[in-house]
């Protein structure tokens, strides 16, 4: 207890040192230029939170029966969770549009985009063990492929979807050739740079990409040649089925489209894992030298992981372009790569279910939280809640970081750890 108290005091002292200048002092616009204003209460609240939080952590960690639980936690293999949770999530995803709420369907589409990106990156990071910090580059390649092909040649979404995937895979291979001899941190840095290069090229190659203005009026997808259009005439979905044209029809269609694409990613990954290629990826993650000694072509195997991961990133990019109908380099910043990587790591490297859960929490959860806070603010007329709701996007990264730290402490191997063997005797 005494040690816990001392440690809590120490943490509070460090927090005081950090928060006193960072939070306790604010620059405000005064009558004559800037004025320095103190905010002692906010700083004190934060320091108190650190003190009690640290104390609570110690008491929690020292509670009796700790060893027994630790052993149990190590042995938990989430096959049960996999068996029930995954179908439940799938059913939920399929039934979600029945709510008829545009807000939820839009949010679901956003979450599913990240699920798909997470699953795509999971092939590279989770299975093959190649740390890729520039995954957003392939997302951008896919999005711009579709936008530019549609703009220049007037091609439709369904023609461009495979092309976007192929082009993204092509860039994956192109990047892969020079960098795959690098390992670990070095590979991460080069992929990070690659992601930035793509973005900078998109901004500066104005003649082709329209630079920072982006590309507008990207065509929407069609359903077997039928357009989703508000006029309800010949050749539109509403006209064909003889129903009232509504925007929600397109929104729901887009939702099911990304659901299908995400499930395709999942299906291919699950199948590949049970195939020699997938096993070679995992073996590569475990020990590259042993792979070489067994006659596995390490370079080709890595390249296929990169290319297939990039391909799904490209599909997701094409979907993003058609959904937004507008893309600009703004949408493909490093933050996107970091978010997708955080989803993969939080979910548990290599775990399909974990990635889906993490995307749901990190993307959907945060959005719901903001919604909840603003509703609370309106109903209670509370400045605090509505202010927090407005500020939440600013704190997004803070919450991400906090979630990562908490996960590292509680479940260092991710939400769903433990892998299912690809073959049993």
């Amino acid at each position: 207890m005494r040690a816990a108290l001392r440690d809590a005091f120490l943490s509070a002292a460090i927090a005081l040192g950090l928060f006193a200048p960072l939070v306790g002092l604010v620059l405000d616009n005064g009558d004559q230029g800037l004025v320095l204003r103190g905010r002692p209460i906010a700083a004190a609240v934060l320091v108190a939170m650190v003190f009690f939080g640290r104390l609570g952590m110690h008491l929690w960690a020292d509670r009796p029966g700790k060893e027994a639980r630790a052993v149990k936690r190590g042995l938990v293999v989430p096959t049960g969770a996999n068996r029930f949770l995954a179908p439940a999530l799938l059913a939920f995803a399929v039934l979600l549009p029945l709510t008829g709420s545009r807000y939820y369907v839009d949010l679901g589409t956003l979450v599913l985009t990240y699920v798909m990106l997470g699953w795509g990156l999971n092939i590279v990071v989770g299975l093959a063990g190649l740390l890729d910090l520039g995954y957003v580059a392939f997302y951008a390649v896919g999005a711009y492929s579709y936008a530019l092909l549609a703009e220049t040649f007037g091609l439709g979404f369904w023609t461009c979807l495979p092309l976007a995937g192929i082009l993204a895979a092509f860039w994956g291979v192109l990047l892969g050739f020079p960098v795959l001899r690098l390992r670990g941190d070095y590979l991460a840095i080069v992929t990070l740079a690659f992601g930035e290069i793509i973005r900078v090229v998109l901004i500066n190659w104005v003649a082709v990409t329209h630079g920072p203005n982006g590309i507008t009026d990207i065509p929407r997808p069609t359903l077997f040649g039928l357009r989703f259009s508000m006029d309800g005439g010949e050749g539109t979905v509403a006209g064909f089925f003889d129903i009232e044209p509504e925007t929600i029809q397109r929104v729901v269609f887009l939702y099911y489209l990304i659901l299908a694409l995400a499930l395709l990613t999942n299906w291919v990954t699950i199948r590949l894992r049970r195939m020699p290629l997938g096993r070679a990826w995992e073996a590569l993650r475990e020990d590259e030298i042993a792979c070489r000694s067994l006659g596995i072509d390490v370079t080709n195997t890595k390249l296929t992981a990169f290319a297939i991961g990039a391909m799904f990133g490209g599909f997701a990019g094409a979907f993003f372009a058609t959904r937004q109908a507008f893309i600009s380099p703004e949408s493909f910043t490093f933050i996107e790569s970091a978010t997708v990587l955080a989803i993969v790591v939080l979910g548990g490297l290599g775990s399909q279910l974990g990635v889906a859960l993490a995307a749901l929490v990190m993307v959907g959860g945060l959005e719901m939280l903001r919604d909840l806070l603003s509703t609370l603010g309106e109903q209670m007329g509370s400045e605090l809640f509505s202010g927090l709701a407005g500020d939440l996007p600013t704190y997004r990264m803070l919450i991400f970081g906090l979630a990562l730290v908490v996960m590292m402490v509680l479940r260092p191997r991710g939400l769903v750890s433990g892998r299912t063997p690809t073959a049993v005797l």
Partner: protein
Amino acid sequence: MLAVSNLTMRFGGLTAVDKLSFEARAGEVTAVIGPNGAGKTTVFNCVTGFYRPSSGGIALTHPGGARFALEKMPGHRIASRAKVARTFQNIRLFAGMTVLENLLVAQHNRLMAATGFGVVALLGLGSYRAAERAGVEKARHWLERIGLIDRANDVASALPYGAQRRLEIARAMCIDPVMLCLDEPAAGLNPRESEALNQLLLSIRADGCSLLLIEHDMGVVMRISDHIVVLDHGRKISDGTPEQVRADPAVIAAYLGEGDDDE
């Protein structure tokens, strides 16, 4: 079978192996021994393609007559084409994967050929399934031989040390090698395990696979080797049957550290 001629390997100014020539005959167990730092593992890494020799040649002749110049081949081809398998001094299993998966990964190239660029296997078609079944059968055969059939679905890192050594050998054998190179297979084994290892290696030899072996455990070396090459400071100091080598004064001197000053 394996002919090493004038093999030299330099690391900067250090010559680890100096104009080494020896032969390993088909169907025999050839042991490479020598004091620490004599260059044994370097020779091994050259033969198995992990190092590219500074000069000299390593020629492998298959029983069928096919010839390979190993010093010119990329590392993974030495295993997949020339069929030379190896194990490592510090065991290198795929620790997070199961015992069975370890053996299936070793059959990668054959299974991969059956997947038809992934499309056939992705759709779960018959020809791939048959190949996969054959792969599992082969793994089962080896698991029975090394006595690990009960632990097929356990994670490889959960096995005891001796079992991990045996599994690594079985994994190497799953690529159907004509020559198996073992880097200190008996290191860290107790006498009973090391006796079991001897039996396993002799049974592999009886199947027609040649063995090249680095070993410190003289009990193992003397009992199972047909032919011993002794290295010291990167040079060959003796070459012959276990009896000849044991009686060779140069070998005794190298091991006991005598006669260094008056040479």
